[in-house]
């Protein structure tokens, strides 16, 4: 069995499952956000903070950011292994982009902590 250190899943099948499971969470959150903005045409600061101060919205947002990390990590690995053949370029790109995705997650935790 081919084992690979660059991707997130333990195997190709694990990647397959992870990317789809995370996609469902991301889709749910996208729909949630669209509904929020459509239902509140003029968002005020109070409403905006009110939304993100609710615990379930914080949990949903953080689960979504974790799902985004998983989805992006595996997705980018698939794209980079397809198109970027030189190893040095590929692994440095993977490193930078995965760190950025991790930074999005940590930013979310830090920001939501204070709301």
């Amino acid at each position, binding site marked *: 069995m081919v084992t690979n250190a660059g991707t997130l899943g333990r195997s190709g099948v694990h990647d397959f499952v992870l990317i789809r499971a995370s996609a469902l969470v991301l889709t749910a959150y*996208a729909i949630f956000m669209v509904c929020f903005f459509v239902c509140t045409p003029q968002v005020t600061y109070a409403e905006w903070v009110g939304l993100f101060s609710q615990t379930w919205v914080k949990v949903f947002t953080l689960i979504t950011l974790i799902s985004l990390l998983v989805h992006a990590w595996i997705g980018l690995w698939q794209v980079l292994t397809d198109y970027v053949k030189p190893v040095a370029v590929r692994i440095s790109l993977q490193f930078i982009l995965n760190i950025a995705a991790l930074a999005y997650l940590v930013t979310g935790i830090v920001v939501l902590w204070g709301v």
Partner: protein
Amino acid sequence: MFFAMGILMWLLAVSLGSESGFECVQEWSSSFFAKFIYWGILTALAYHLLGGLRHLVMDLGFWEEIQSGNSSAQITIALTIVLSVLAGVWLW
């Protein structure tokens, strides 16, 4: 999509940080340039999301023939255009 998330996380951090930050984001968001960026992000998201849903259906074993695969792809693109136009209307 990846850079779009960077922009959105930045906007979220600033807008939740303080009331002045929120007004700053609100002010910026009303400019044409900002709306164009939002529209680009929403269109990319629509295309990516609909394409992903189509893949989920294909995982279930549907749309795997040349005819059904082709037509479902065209429907996905058509739906993306519809959502993109809706996003444009909503933004402007």
